[in-house]
């Protein structure tokens, strides 16, 4: 359809072009013909008039001189006259014929004819031979010259008239040419109009749809799916495009609506979940700006007095997480942070994790989520338990010390001897008493570890000193078992560590006593301070004992855990307490993989 329109439009322009060209050629040809005809005609008259003057001059110069002389007896030769008279007559005819009904011309032609007739009559008179007398001849001469003058004047006036006519003709032709120009101008204007029309049509049928399409695509890109392209007329190449586009827009709209619905539902579900979670939840963008927070979080922030921000303590942990690109997902309620709200203490365990969409290019698809798990009650219960254990242990321990004292006195047999049976019973009771005391001491240690590790009294100390103190402390015990304790010489330039020496001693004592306990007779226990990495010092305690059974390795740091087949005392709290102390120091305690029949326990103490 569009192709046809284009073809017709261009055809019209071509036809017009041809028409204008042809017309211009024809008109040019025609006006040039007219001009030459006119020129010829008018020039004939001028020529004739000119010729008349020539003829009269010829005649006058031939004949008139004789008039000035007396009569010569000789016949007058009139042959020239006759010949020239015919020519004169011919010229006269040309002039007469050229009048073309113009009254002015007719008058002039008539007067010209009369003048020629009068002029010829003079010569006829001359040739009649009647003019013999000198006076007559003079008269005739005078007459002839007058007539000649008149004829010459006539010729002049005819010539000027002819020129005038020629000029008029030129003017006429000019007017004719003006008409031609008008015609061509009209045709050109017509052509321009048609071209404009075609342009308009083309724009309407070709450019407009494309522009509309572009606009619509732009609108859809902006999310305006309501826009529909108008269907073009039948046969337009744009029908398919427009309908395809409208289909696409409609589908996009449906899709968008579905997506919107899904999003809305997801949003609602999310909000419901967030609102249902009693723990404060913050959702943050990558630059830690709070994007979303649940009512619990708003409540907390408000009460802490930092509306719509995250508490500073958490910000610090978050900054660490961002720096290391790691999550922060502690399990232990003892890592909870203390918040004072309305003069009450609340413990929140912060759990910080990073989320990221699978599409990494999407900047808004990542951020941080912070959940503050309220562990106040757990902490409270834990404290209660610890306090209960401590109180009960103390309450039991106090009378037990009395019982123990009495049993010892009995066994001393200072006042009276015991018989064998009494002795057995008393010593059995004493053993039980010792065991019970041991358990109570462990329980007290546990409660002390659990309540006390958060309150470290830290000072800058030398780790080597602590190791040597422990070695000295257990020298007797080692000697009793014929175990040699070897302490490696101090590391050169070893930095000081920021520790609670008493607590650290407890850890070291525990490790050293364990190592001695598990050493074979005559074995060696090695103690060494090393610096495997820049930011911590390591104390290694190595013994040559049988090692920790594989099944037990993962559990030795749990409370009350004792590896099976162990015949030593203790209730299995030593390593647990040690771990708690190391944790409070932000350090580590661990068991190395067994090698060369050696068991190595180590603690990593951060350098201040």
């Amino acid at each position, binding site marked *: 359809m569009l192709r046809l329109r284009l073809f017709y439009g261009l055809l019209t322009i071509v036809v017009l072009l041809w028409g204008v060209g042809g017309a211009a050629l024809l008109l040019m040809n025609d006006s040039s013909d007219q001009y030459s005809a006119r020129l010829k005609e008018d020039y004939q008259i001028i020529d004739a008039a000119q010729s008349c003057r020539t003829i009269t001059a010829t005649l006058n110069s031939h004949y008139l001189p004789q008039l000035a002389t007396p009569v010569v007896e000789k016949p007058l030769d009139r042959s020239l006259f006759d010949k020239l008279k015919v020519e004169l007559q011919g010229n006269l005819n040309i002039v007469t014929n050229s009048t073309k009904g113009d009254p002015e011309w007719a008058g002039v032609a008539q007067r010209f004819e009369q003048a020629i007739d009068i002029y010829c009559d003079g010569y006829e008179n001359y040739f009649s031979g009647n003019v013999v007398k000198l006076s007559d001849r003079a008269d005739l001469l005078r007459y002839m010259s007058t007539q000649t003058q008149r004829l010459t004047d006539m010729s002049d006036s005819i010539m000027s008239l002819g020129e005038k006519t020629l000029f008029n003709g030129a003017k006429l032709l000019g007017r004719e040419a003006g008409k031609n120009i008008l015609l061509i101008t009209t045709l050109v204007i017509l052509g321009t109009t048609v071209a404009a029309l075609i342009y308009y049509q083309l724009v309407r049928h070709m450019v407009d749809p494309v522009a509309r399409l572009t606009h619509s695509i732009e609108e859809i890109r902006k999310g305006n799916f309501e826009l529909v392209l108008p269907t073009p007329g039948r046969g337009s190449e744009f029908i398919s495009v427009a309908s395809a586009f409208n289909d696409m827009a409609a589908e996009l709209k449906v899709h968008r609506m579905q997506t919107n619905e899904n999003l809305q539902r997801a949003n609602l579900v999310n909000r419901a979940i967030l609102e249902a979670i009693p723990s404060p939840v913050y959702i943050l963008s990558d630059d830690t700006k709070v994007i979303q927070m649940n009512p619990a979080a708003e409540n907390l922030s408000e009460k802490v007095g930092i509306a719509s921000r995250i508490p500073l303590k958490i910000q610090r942990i978050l900054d660490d997480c961002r720096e290391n690109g790691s999550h922060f997902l502690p399990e232990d309620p003892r890592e909870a942070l203390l918040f004072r709200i309305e003069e009450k203490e609340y413990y929140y365990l912060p759990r910080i994790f990073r989320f990221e969409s699978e599409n990494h290019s999407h900047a808004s698809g990542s951020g941080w989520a912070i959940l503050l798990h309220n562990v106040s009650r757990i902490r409270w219960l834990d404290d209660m338990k610890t306090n209960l254990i401590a109180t009960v242990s103390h309450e039991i*321990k*106090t*009378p*037990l010390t009395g019982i123990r*004292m*009495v049993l010892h*006195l009995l066994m001393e047999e200072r006042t009276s001897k015991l018989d064998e049976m009494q002795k057995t019973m008393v010593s059995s009771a004493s053993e039980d008493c010792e065991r019970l005391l041991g358990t109570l001491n462990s329980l007290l240690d546990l409660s002390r570890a659990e309540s006390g590790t958060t309150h470290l*009294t830290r000072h800058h100390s030398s780790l080597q000193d602590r190791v040597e103190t422990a070695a*000295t402390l257990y020298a*007797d015990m080692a000697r009793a078992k014929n175990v040699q304790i070897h302490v490696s010489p101090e590391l050169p330039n070893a930095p000081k560590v920021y520790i609670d020496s008493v607590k650290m001693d407890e850890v070291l004592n525990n490790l050293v006593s364990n190592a001695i306990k598990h050493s074979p007779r005559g074995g060696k226990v090695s103690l060494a301070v090393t610096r495997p990495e820049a930011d911590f010092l390591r104390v290694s305690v190595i013994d040559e004992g049988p090692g920790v059974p594989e099944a037990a390795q993962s559990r030795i740091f749990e409370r009350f855990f004792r590896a099976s087949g162990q015949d030593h005392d203790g209730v299995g709290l030593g390593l647990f307490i040690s771990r708690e102390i190391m944790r409070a120091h932000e350090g580590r305690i661990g068991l190395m993989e067994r090698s060369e029949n050696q068991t190595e326990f180590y603690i990593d103490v951060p350098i201040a």
Partner: protein
Amino acid sequence: MFQSPDSGSLIHLATRRVLVVDDEPTLRLGFSYALSNKTTYVETAATGRQALDATAKADFDVIILDLRMPDIDGLGVIKSLRNVGIQTPIVLCSAGLNSSSTMQALLNGVVDFLHKPICPAELRGVVDFILTPSNQLFPKAMRAAREGAYDVAIGFLNQAASPDTQTTAWADIFTLLRNEKHKGETFLLEQHVNQHLNLLAYREPGGV
């Protein structure tokens, strides 16, 4: 007020008077039996109040004092006694000795500690250690310290040819206690006490 160890005549020995203060009846009984003999008289008190009444009525050579008691606790008794000018040697005997109570005791001139549970031998040992010290440097130093002569005590301790951890710990503490009289800084003392808490209690010679 208390027996001069050097004038160790039989008559004097026969008049050793020990006050045992503990709220635990069995322990009081045990302590009495453990200490009582021909030369030692033991009196008991169940509370801090009773202890103060007993010391007001009669003089004692040694007081074995429990820390945790219902009415007036051990530290309260120590302060009350020192306030009325009674400088009797006191053995603070408790299962729950911590750095702050130990430090309070030290500041009141108490340098003998027993860590419960104890056996009769230790109890007798500590009483002998106080009342009839041997001629060794450590018991002499402790005796000087009991009298408030920290410089003398430090001097004895520094004479030790191969000082063990207990000796150096006490030397440090006495130095701090001596300085404490001039300055009011208990911080270093508490830190030190905290570090050496295990070394301060009386230990039977030869025991671990």
